[in-house]
């Protein structure tokens, strides 16, 4: 069954087609990677799926319902969560608070209980903090629980965004270049994290330049070029596709 279905999706910016007539679907429980050279439209695609941009044409369907043009803050409630290539970290907060914001929808968000610090809502908040601390452990940030986000290194912030996205308990997790800027060891750790997430039943859509990682963990790969689909299939199929080799892999090898 496909969890995410994209059909004839297009996005124009002042006459330039960032995404053009793109269709694909993502099966539940898989790791689905999107590759392509810089400017191929990968991040634009993420922004279209997560409601940050409104499609010029076509549709996006999540869990059987159309979500084109739905505000990002409503998509989270449906089970969609993501990270960002250019960090969207709350630098005015501590690391654990960043993750706790991810759990926003699962907390008591009413004004009066918050204002009066009612025991019930405090208890839920404390339980959430414990849960979020475990999530930080899970992504390898156990040492940073009480750190200020503004004092953390880049690699840690990338993982902080993953922990925050996981705190929202998504069905579908979109990761935008989680390994960019990381060293080899950190990359392998992220690798493991993504596999574990998928093993827990979360569907993962991954944009990544690290080909070793992509080929190693993906069930399915979609290759984009200039906003259009270049190839699609298993890692082996995509690797063997001459167009992909010419447009992307060739340039790198």
């Amino acid at each position, binding site marked *: 069954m496909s969890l995410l279905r994209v059909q004839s999706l297009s996005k124009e910016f002042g006459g330039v087609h960032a995404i053009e007539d793109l269709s694909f679907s993502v099966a539940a429980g898989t790791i689905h990677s999107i590759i392509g050279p810089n400017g191929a439209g990968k991040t634009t695609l993420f922004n279209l799926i*997560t409601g*940050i941009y409104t499609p010029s044409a076509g549709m996006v369907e999540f869990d059987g319902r159309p979500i084109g043009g739905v*505000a*990002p*803050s*409503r*998509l*989270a*409630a449906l089970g*969609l*969560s*993501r990270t*960002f290539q250019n*960090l*969207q*970290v*709350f*630098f*005015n*907060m501590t690391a654990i*608070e*960043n993750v*706790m*914001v*991810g759990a*926003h*929808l699962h*907390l*008591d*968000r009413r*004004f009066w209980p*918050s*204002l*009066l*610090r009612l025991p019930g*809502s405090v208890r839920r*908040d404390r339980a959430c903090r414990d849960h979020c601390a475990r999530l930080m452990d899970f992504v390898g940030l156990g040492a940073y629980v009480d750190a200020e986000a503004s004092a953390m290194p880049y690699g840690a912030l990338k993982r902080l*965004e993953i922990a*925050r*996205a996981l*705190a*929202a308990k998504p069905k579908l997790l979109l990761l935008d270049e989680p390994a960019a800027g990381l060293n080899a060891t950190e990359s392998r750790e992220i690798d493991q994290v993504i596999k574990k997430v998928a093993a827990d039943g979360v569907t993962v859509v991954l944009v990544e330049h690290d080909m070793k990682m992509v080929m190693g963990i993906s069930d399915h790969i979609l290759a984009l070029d200039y906003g259009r689909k270049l190839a699609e299939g298993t890692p082996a199929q995509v690797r063997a596709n001459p167009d992909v080799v010419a447009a992307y892999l060739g340039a790198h090898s």
Partner: protein
Amino acid sequence: MAKLMKARTGGMALLALVMAVSPLGFANAYYYDVAVGALFNAMICVGLNLLIGYGGQISLGHGAFFALGAYASAIGTSRWGLPPLAALAGGGALVGLLAFALARPILRLKGHYLAMATLGVGMIIYIVLKTEAQWTGGPDGVGVDPLTLAGFTLATDRQWYWLGAGLLLLVVWLALNLVESPVGRALRAGHGAQVGAEVVGVDTSHYKVLMFVVSAVVASVVGSLFAHKNGFITPDIAGFHHSIELVTMVVLGGMASIFGSVLGALLLTVLPQMLAGFDDYEAMIFGAIMMGTMIFLPKGLLPSLIALIRKKRGAKP
């Protein structure tokens, strides 16, 4: 003891202690009078800091919300014979509604546009209060009866001081609760990275609107108290200058610092009194302080102070 070292409990305890001990140094009613002014300003600034420091939204119009609360109490008690608490609550509710109605269109704006819009709202309210003399007494102002609660009239500055001190503790406690709750985190997240907050389900504009309303209601309620305490109000309390004073207190004390707001309010309320002998220089000194702190301590006094202490402590292991 460990609990006292935490910013929350320790800060509240320190604040309570300072407020309890300060009157020992008050030589006469004038000191109490100035202190009450500082307490009132501190309450408004704690509320305003939720909007400015935590929510990242500037307002150059909160003096007007303060004034509406003050006039609601003045008109409600003397004109309609309402009990003071009813007038205070009614004023707060009206200001809350007004702020709510204005918040959506206003908070869509950013930076200078937001500054202009809040300034505009404040100016319009100021001009209305000045012009509608049959209600407000016009530019000459209007008298207000003292505050009577359950048959007891607050007559002296000393009584006002203790009421103000108790209320400030309450306001600080509530504000700290809010900041550390899911509501406060959502608010701060919207300020830190709006898109990042949206994608995990935070309706960021909802929280901005909420804080705009909360800070406006706090200003209104304090305005009501001020009207009773002062016994006389003029439209100038709605003016641009008053709104600026409030924002400056928040920024001077430290954005996103509850106790910083208390400090900022205290300093900027007491300072002009100390400059009273230098009447001619007062505006210049005030302006120079505003510029100086923003240039040299842009994070504000308290956060800069805390950072300094941390650094010192870190230096000697």
